[in-house]
């Protein structure tokens, strides 16, 4: 279990992490979400002691990372794939890490096999593609067979096969009871794997809940209405306080009024209904909605006025 309590970090007076608190439970994949610059990587660096918190605390199973004499046996971290010397072979990189923890050499071969780098084990890391570098970073994280995994944007640079492979691996590892924190700035990557979410923006906690709750919580819930009397119905809904967008012939997208209310309006006015479907916001939309005020490098959002059609289940495919 990872516990972060009231964590703060400033660089040169600029607040990057602002009183952040959350816990990450074992047995599930926890997605760590936020726009670029939200402080995800910094939080992870603070958890594993690479950076010192300005104040507050992060522990793993109640112990500070720096107090673990053989930390790689407890925590595996993939923070950036660039943490290997270009001139050193994959095997030697993993070997030197293993040696610091008293991990036998055989384990180096095991993790190389696991991440699919066995054939290039004795080639220099400088010759590796981005994806291979990412796999080597993952091998380093797994070298000590840790019960806690912290992965910062693990699918970066991976091809679709690699992305599927990482998703399955991460789900498998969680099913064994490990604690897994996976960061991403893309909802779609997380939607397929994470059942819990921690969402941050500008170093502050925006949400810590299950993925389903996160979507549920989003205010951007809409109702799709199809009716041959769409024009008349639209007037009724508007006067009842709803917001209506016309979408094609006889189709309305309604917000601010729920499906039951629309049904009642249609029934009273004796208008014919062909379809009346509540639409959940997609994870992507929920994410955009809840983080767009906290984007560090905010451009204008084109998302806010487009109708919401996608359902949560379709999100995984859109990248």
């Amino acid at each position, binding site marked *: 279990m990872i516990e972060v309590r009231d964590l703060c970090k400033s660089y040169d007076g600029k607040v990057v992490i602002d009183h952040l608190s959350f816990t990450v439970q074992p047995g599930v994949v926890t997605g760590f979400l936020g726009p670029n610059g939200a402080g995800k990587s910094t939080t992870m*660096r603070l958890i*594993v*002691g*690479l*950076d*010192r918190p300005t104040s507050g605390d992060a522990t*793993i*199973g*109640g*112990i500070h*990372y*720096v*107090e*673990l*004499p*053989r*930390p*790689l*046996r*407890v925590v595996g*971290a993939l*923070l*950036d794939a*660039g*943490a*290997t*010397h*270009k*001139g*050193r*072979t994959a095997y*030697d*990189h993993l*070997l*030197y*890490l293993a*040696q*610091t*923890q*008293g991990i036998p050499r055989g384990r180096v071969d*095991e*993790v190389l*096999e*696991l991440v699919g780098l066995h054939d290039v084990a004795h080639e220099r890391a400088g010759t590796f593609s981005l994806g291979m570098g990412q796999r080597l970073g993952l091998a*380093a994280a*797994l070298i000590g*067979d*840790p*019960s*806690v995994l912290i992965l910062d944007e693990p699918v970066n640079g991976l091809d679709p096969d690699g992305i599927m492979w990482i998703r399955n*691996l991460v789900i*498998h*590892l969680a099913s*064994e*009871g*490990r604690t897994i924190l996976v960061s991403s700035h893309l909802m779609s990557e997380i939607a397929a794997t994470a059942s819990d979410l921690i969402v941050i923006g500008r170093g502050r906690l925006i949400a810590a809940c299950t993925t389903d709750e996160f979507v549920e919580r989003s205010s951007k819930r809409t109702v799709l209405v199809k009716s041959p009397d769409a024009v008349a119905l639209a007037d009724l809904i508007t006067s009842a306080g709803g917001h209506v967008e016309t979408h094609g012939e006889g189709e309305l997208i309604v917000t601010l009024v729920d499906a039951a209310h629309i049904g009642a309006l249609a029934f009273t006015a004796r208008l014919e209904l062909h379809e009346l479907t509540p639409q959940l916001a997609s994870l992507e939309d929920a994410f955009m909605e809840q983080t767009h005020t906290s984007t560090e490098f905010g451009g204008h959002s084109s998302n806010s006025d487009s109708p919401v059609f996608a359902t949560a289940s379709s999100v995984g495919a859109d990248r």
Partner: protein
Amino acid sequence: MTATVLHPPSEDVRLGRTGLDIGGLVRSEWTKIRSLRSSVAAFVLLVVATVGFTALFVGLTVTQWDQLDAVQKLTYQLDPTRLILGAGFQISQLAVCVLGVLVISNEYSSGTIRASLLAVPRRTPMLMTKAAVFAVLVFVVGEVAAFGAFAIGAPILHSKVPVGIGDPGVLHALFGAGLYGAVLGVFSIAIGAIVRHTAGGITGIIAFVLVLAPLTQLIPGAIGDHIYAYLPTSAGQLMVNARQGPKDLLTPWQGFGVVCLWTAVLMLVANYLLRRRDA
């Protein structure tokens, strides 16, 4: 299949608390050094260049012997070991400085430092074992270079100044070359750990050894002599002499103590910064 490779996790993170494994850290630092082609090449170059320059310089001295003035001849006759080891030594000294800075600064430039510090989050044991492993390595390679230089330099010089390995002070000087090299290596690691940039660290230490140290000799009077005598390089180099020269303010072992003190202070600063700074 993942199940064969990943074992069910242990409930207790305290399993990780089984104490620091110094032997493992030493093996790890050794792996880091030997797995980089560039550092292996630099060590080989160090020996070759030291021996080569010794032969060249001693050979030139012998051929020019008749043009030398009496004082110089006397200096060489008093301490031929200083002549033999002195030439190649300037080269190997610079090589050790560059290698020492590189051994730590390349961890920063490549990003490996983060992997290293994740493995040894207390940081101090990593710096200390790195310094120790490098020091032992420089000592061994330094001895190979020193004995190699003596083996090739002494016969060349023999016609002018006969010197044998059993002569008083010679073994001390040969032994001192490796010892000084080892301490200078640690000194360089400290500089590298403080500066954290390869180019900056190397420029800094070379400027110090080649420019600043000789410049202090230009300071007139006893003040200049004393400043120069207590600089890490000039103090440490005394170890490579078979005997205390007439102009030396310190004995070889006093000089060695001075360079050790410099190194200890810099290592303390490096360690303090390493623990304090974000990696």
